[in-house]
C-alpha cells in the first residue's frame, strides 16, 4: 500500500478512512493487503458494543454516548449495523437517522449492512474496527442489528459490551429471553421516562448471575433517558470503570487473545477448505456425493481421500 494513503488513514482523513472501509467490506486480496499494512498501528482504541432488542433505543443511546465522549476529549467513531434482506440483499440503514446531532462534530459514522452474516454484526466489522483503530479514534462504538436471539458476537469484538433493555416490551426481560444477559458488562434500562423502568431494573438485578468470586466484575444496572441525554454521564463513567478493571486485571489482553484465537481458527478453516477444494472438479465432487448417497462409501472415507489428496 502506498505510504500516502497509509498516512491519510492514520490522520483520520474521512475520505481515506471511508474508502478503506469500503475495501475491507469488499474483501479479497485487496482487503488483506490493506489490513496487513494497518495492523501494526492498531490496538489502541477502546471498543464498546451496544446491543439489545429493536426499538430499545440503541441508536439514540449511541448518539448521546458519542456526544458525552466528545466532551471528554475523545475522538469517536461509530459503526452501526442493520440487517440485509436475505431475499434481495438490500438494506435500509436507518441508524444514522437518530444520530443527526453528531453532524459536523468530527465523529465518524459508518452504517453497515449485515450482508448475510448471522450473529448481529457484518462479516467486515472486525476489519472495519481495525481501520478505525489505525485511524487513531480513541473510542469505537458499535451498534448491533438488535434482532435479539444469539446476538453474542459483539462480546468478542468489544472490550465493553452494553446490553440495552426498555420497559414496556412485555413482562419478559428481552435480553434474558434472547440469552444475551451473560455478555453484558453494563446493563442499561433505557426509556426510564416510562412506567416500569424501576421494575425492569430490579428484575435485571435479580437475574444477574452472582459470580462467587468477590473480585469479579459485577455488571452495574443503570437507568437512562437517551432521548434527553439523561444518565449518559453515569453510563460513560461505568464504561470507564469497566475498562479500568480490564486493564488492572490484564483482562483486556486476555480478551484480545481469545478473539484472535477464534479469528485465526475460523480463517484457517475457511482457507484450508478452499485450498483442499480449489482443484476438485464439480464432477468429482458429484461422484463423491453419489458414492455416499448410494452407500458405497461413507463421508469419513471421502474426507480422508480429500485430505490426503
Amino acid at each position, binding site marked *: 500500500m502506498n505510504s500516502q494513503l497509509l498516512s491519510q488513514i492514520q490522520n483520520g482523513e474521512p475520505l481515506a478512512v*471511508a474508502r478503506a472501509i469500503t475495501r475491507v467490506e469488499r474483501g479479497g486480496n485487496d482487503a488483506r493487503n490493506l489490513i496487513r499494512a494497518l495492523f501494526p498501528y492498531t490496538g489502541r482504541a477502546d471498543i464498546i458494543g451496544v446491543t439489545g432488542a429493536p426499538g430499545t433505543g440503541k441508536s439514540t443511546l449511541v448518539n448521546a454516548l458519542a456526544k458525552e465522549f466528545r466532551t471528554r476529549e475523545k475522538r469517536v467513531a461509530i459503526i452501526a449495523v442493520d440487517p440485509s*434482506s436475505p431475499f434481495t*440483499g*438490500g438494506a435500509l440503514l436507518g441508524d*444514522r437517522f437518530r444520530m*443527526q446531532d453528531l453532524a459536523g462534530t468530527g465523529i465518524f459514522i*459508518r*452504517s453497515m449492512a449485515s450482508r448475510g452474516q448471522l450473529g448481529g454484526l457484518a462479516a467486515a466489522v472486525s476489519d472495519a474496527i481495525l481501520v478505525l483503530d489505525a485511524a487513531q479514534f480513541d473510542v469505537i462504538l458499535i451498534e448491533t442489528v438488535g434482532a435479539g436471539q444469539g446476538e453474542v458476537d459483539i462480546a468478542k469484538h468489544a472490550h465493553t459490551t452494553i446490553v440495552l433493555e426498555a420497559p414496556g416490551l412485555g413482562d419478559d426481560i428481552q435480553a434474558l429471553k434472547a440469552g444475551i444477559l451473560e455478555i453484558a458488562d453494563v446493563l442499561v434500562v433505557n426509556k426510564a421516562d416510562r412506567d416500569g423502568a424501576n421494575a425492569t431494573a430490579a428484575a435485571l438485578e435479580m437475574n444477574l448471575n452472582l459470580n462467587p468470586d468477590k473480585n469479579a466484575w459485577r455488571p452495574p444496572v443503570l437507568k437512562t433517558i437517551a432521548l434527553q441525554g439523561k444518565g449518559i454521564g453515569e453510563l460513560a463513567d461505568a464504561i470507564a470503570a469497566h475498562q479500568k478493571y480490564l486493564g488492572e486485571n490484564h483482562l483486556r489482553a486476555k480478551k484480545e487473545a481469545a478473539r484472535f484465537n477464534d479469528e485465526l481458527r475460523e480463517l484457517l478453516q475457511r482457507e484450508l477448505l478452499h485450498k483442499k477444494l480449489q482443484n476438485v472438479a464439480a464432477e468429482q465432487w458429484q461422484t463423491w456425493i453419489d458414492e455416499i448417497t448410494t452407500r458405497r462409501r461413507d463421508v469419513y472415507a471421502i474426507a480422508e481421500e480429500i485430505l490426503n489428496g
Partner: protein
Amino acid sequence: MSDTPIRVLVAKPGLDGHDRGAKVVARAMRDAGMEVIYTGIRQTPEMIAEAALQEDVDVVGLSILSGAHLELFPRVTELLKEKGKTDVLLVAGGIIPDEDIPQLNAMGFTGVFGPGTNTNDLVKFVQAEMAKRRMHNAQ
C-alpha cells in the same frame, strides 16, 4: 465487483417536510438490492456531503418539493467536490420544473425524476448508470 451492493444516500435538503417520495424511493431501492441510508428531512448541504463521504456511497439522491433546488443543490455538489468525493452518481426527484433540468444536469445530476415516476424506472436508471461506472473502473 459488480456483486457488491450499490450504496445510496437518500437525503432531503432544506426545510421541506414532504418526505413521502423520499421514503418510497428509498424502499424501492432497497427492494432492488441496494443498501440505502436515509437520513430524514431538514438536512443541510454540509450534513449531506458529510454523510456521503463517511458512508462512501456510490449514489447521492436528493429529494425536494419545496422549490429550493437551485439554491441548495449547488452547495451540495460544491461541498462534495471540496471534500474530494467526486466518484458519485447524482440523481434527484420531487417538484422540479422542466426548465430547471438542464441546469441540474450541468451541475452533475445525471437523472432528474418528477411526480408520477415509476420507481422501477428510476431503479433501472441507477443500476444501468452504476453498471457503466463499475465497468469503466474495472478497466
